[in-house]
């Protein structure tokens, strides 16, 4: 069986297996889910070992014609952009399942939905045909809707509906753009490669119009200002493990899609560069300031995600080697950091049943492990040297500096703001006088420690030795940025 199809199907097989198991067998269900996710993770790491970093194009490519009259096909492939995302997605899904101990109702369907979600997300990152991409993109909504709506917090119904409406609203624009592109492409095919070839020949204003459709579609998912309205509510109301996936992987689908769209429409990017950079910088500062205003920890992380995705957009807008490297690196780094933060805050919430930062105090003495990992994740979010965030921000700033020069000072304002809320949160959570309510909190258990430790190790490894990761994406980025050398 082709490897990528196997990777796509592994979680789905797990989901099918669980759905036929009796609902009382929670242990078995959890074991099956974990092993399916672990198998997917191992397979993706196996793919990494087979991946040739010198090749810019697609690898492990497989294609089955689907509907020749419409030009659709089932096509999967990996390149330097999608492989890091696949690795991130499989890792975070495994972590999510590890952290799902707190889910006690309807456990069976919860795991089924998470595994379905994993399959769909992996498919989005691997798809090399726009119909397949769109199909799987929409498919992620269904499990997420139920996950938020059934297992979420107090305002879960509103959050779930909101999330789906926003994303589908954006998808409509994406679909229109895709249909227009299909229409103007001489080959009349939905394959990413041939569609891109056709699109590149279009005049600039057509490209710009088409790109706007993609920008709205992907921007909603990526939560660019001002279409990020779904994000705070969904992140806060979703069950904590799902928040890990939402901000860790789902946001990345948006920026990944944007990079794919940009590949097809280079002239549009060149024309819209100031707009994209403006949006990016504004998102960066806007998200940061709002994160600073939140006393709800999950809301704070949600808004900090808006801020961090601003850096991704900035790197994409710069569209030079450094900028793109920064963007992809930031996608990975933010996936790890936000994943770690939602994991830890979620676990903390399980124990204290409060997310208000003012209620916490002096956890350093009670729960040193929490203190260590949370501080590490917050500092990594700030971009402290030695963490993955630093490498990403540095590249994005260098890329931006090559394009816009001193305007990048605004990025450092954003960093300052992120330092303000990160350090504030560390201080609030872990220092100060001991409160009676915070006196008997259990520290991280073994499995939770494993989950947090894996993420922390990845954050630090990528920060200290980023070279392998950078080499992984280098070839694809070089090829992509070559499109823009003359623009």
């Amino acid at each position: 069986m082709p490897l990528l199809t196997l990777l796509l199907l592994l979680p789905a097989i797990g989901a099918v297996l669980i759905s036929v198991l009796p609902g009382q067998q929670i242990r078995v269900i959890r074991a099956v889910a974990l092993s399916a996710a672990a198998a997917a993770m191992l397979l993706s790491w196996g793919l990494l070992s087979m991946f040739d970093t010198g090749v810019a194009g697609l690898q492990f490519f497989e294609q089955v014609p689907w509907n020749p009259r419409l030009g659709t096909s089932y096509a999967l492939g990996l390149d330097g952009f999608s492989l890091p995302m696949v690795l991130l997605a499989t890792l975070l899904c495994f972590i999510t399942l590890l952290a799902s101990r707190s889910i006690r109702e309807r456990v069976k369907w919860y795991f089924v939905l998470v595994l379905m979600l994993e399959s769909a997300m992996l498919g989005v990152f691997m798809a090399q045909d726009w119909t397949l991409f769109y199909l799987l993109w929409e498919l992620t909504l269904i499990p997420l809707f139920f996950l938020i709506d059934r297992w979420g917090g107090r305002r879960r119904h509103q959050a779930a509906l909101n999330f789906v409406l926003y994303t589908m609203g954006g998808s409509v624009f994406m679909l229109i753009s895709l249909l227009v592109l299909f229409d103007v492409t001489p080959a009349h095919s939905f394959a990413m490669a041939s569609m891109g070839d056709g699109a590149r020949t279009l005049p600039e204003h057509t490209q710009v119009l088409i790109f706007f459709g993609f920008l709205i579609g992907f921007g909603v998912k990526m939560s660019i200002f001002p279409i990020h309205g779904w994000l705070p509510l969904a992140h806060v109301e979703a069950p904590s493990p799902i928040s890990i996936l939402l901000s860790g992987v789902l946001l990345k689908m948006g920026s990944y899609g944007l990079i794919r769209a940009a590949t097809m429409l280079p002239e549009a990017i060149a024309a819209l560069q100031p707009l994209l950079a403006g949006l990016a910088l504004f998102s960066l500062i806007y998200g940061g300031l709002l994160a600073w205003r939140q006393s709800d920890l999950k809301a704070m992380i949600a808004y900090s995600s808006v801020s961090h995705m601003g850096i991704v957009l900035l790197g994409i807008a710069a569209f030079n080697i450094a900028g793109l490297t920064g963007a992809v690196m930031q996608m990975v780094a933010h996936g790890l950091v936000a994943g770690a933060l939602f994991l830890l805050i979620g676990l903390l919430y399980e124990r204290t049943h409060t997310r208000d930062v003012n209620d916490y105090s002096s956890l350093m003495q009670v729960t040193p492990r929490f203190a260590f990992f949370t501080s590490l994740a917050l500092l990594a979010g700030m971009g402290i040297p030695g963490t993955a965030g630093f490498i990403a921000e540095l590249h994005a700033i260098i890329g931006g500096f090559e394009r816009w020069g001193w305007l990048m000072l605004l990025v450092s304002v954003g960093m300052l703001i992120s330092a303000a809320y990160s350090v504030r949160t560390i201080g609030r959570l872990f220092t100060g006088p001991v409160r009676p309510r915070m006196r008997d909190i259990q520290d991280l258990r073994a499995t939770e420690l494993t989950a947090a430790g894996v993420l922390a190790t990845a954050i630090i490894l990528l920060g200290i030795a980023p070279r392998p990761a950078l080499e992984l994406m280098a070839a694809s980025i070089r090829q992509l940025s070559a499109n823009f050398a003359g623009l």
Partner: protein
Amino acid sequence: MVELAWLIPVLPMLAAAWIGVVYVIAGNRGEALEKSTSRIAIAAATLSLLLILVIDLLALVRGAPGQIAFGSWLSSGVYEIRISFTLDTLGLSMATLVALLSLLTLRFSVNYMHREDGFQRFFMILSLFMGAMLLLVMAGSAMLTFIGWELAGVSSYLLIAYAFDRPTATANATRAFVTNRIGDASFIIAIVLSLFWLGSVEWPDILACGGVLETLKVGLILSCFLLAALVKSAQVPFAPWIARALEGPTPSSAIFYGALMVHAGVYLIIRLAPLFELIPELMLLLAVLGAITALYGLLAGLVQTDTKSALIFSTTGQVGLMFLECGLGWFSFAAWHLAAHAAWRAYQFLSAPGLMHLMGRSNRPVPRWLQHRRWLYTASLQRFWLDNIANWLLIKPVRYLARDIQSFDQQVVNRLVGLPGSASAVSSLAQWEQFKVGEAGRVVGDSGDVGRGRGVAGRLMEGVAVLLQWFEEHLVLKGGDEGIFNLIQRLGRNLEKVELLLSQPRYLFLLILITFIVIL
């Protein structure tokens, strides 16, 4: 043999490091282990001296080796700083003198410091000082000389404050050290100027700069070195610090202020002799300052009542004479004077503690001619008010300025950046916490200050954040989702109405009629 010259200053420094490390791991504390400490120091000093003597002998036979480079210390762009020694006759003879006197003083201290509290500390600092002085006189570049210069200054500071539990000792140490910093600063400026204009700080290059640079620049570099020398050798107007430096144990006074360190300035002048000869104005200045210092030393020395003070003022006077000799162009004579004076003064200082026992009579009275001149007598007794003038001219204004700046800092800067108004009001973290923690354990005045900024930048940030939050809530969240809900509901209601109307037959009929009309 000459290749091993770098060992000469390094050996005593290694001994110092060894003593320090062993002390930290508690290997040589206590009276019984004094011997191990002193042996190490003396062995290192002896080895250094022997090495120098061998090199001296070689120099006598084959001539002085001159400039030797051992390697590069650092290089940046066109600048390179080498590790090099200048082993000419001046450097070698000075090094011999330093090593010999240091060794003798070390040996003397073994008995003198016996059962003293800081025996190990004393030997460590003295060894460090010996290494520093050797480095100072042997160094081949101004940079290395400066390193020795500074290390000597630091060890001087440490030994003046030897009895660090006595406030006078520490105050005097600070005073002496701070006065020395004036000279150090000007030494650094001289190094920077040489690097900037000459691209090198090697002594031969600096000495040859007369042919390269215009006189003004040479004069500037030279004045900076001169100032450094004046301070280190305690010449007027910087003379008073040396009297304060006598707080240390007698052997240290002997070697620092009697014999060696006080002559470092003279050494620097002699080292720079070729340059001084180019600029007569500076020679004149040297001579004048030297003469004044000699007079100052003489007069202040005459009115002292204790041996050590009399000796130190006499030293100042003699060093002043050396400056005078240099000013008159007699550099070799000054060098001989230096060596003779160093040896003699070291002997005097070391025998001073026993002098009382030996003499059995009180000090010599103040000479009659001085007694009759009241004003001169007073002035001498007051050391010509140099200390007071320095206090009044430098220390007081600086202190007032510092006070004003601190109050500015507290009143204005702290408020601007949002720190608590007076840092001195809360002296410890515990106090701060006590101040903040209310009765119920809830932090007072701190409840929910999330999103509250302090200081100008913080307030600005808060303002913008509040604005953006309003925008987010009213336009993005309410306008977005709740707005969409309302819109959908309203649309739905209207469509229901249309549906209701359409379900009535008359409107259906009307609709069909209209359709027909349109089609037709």
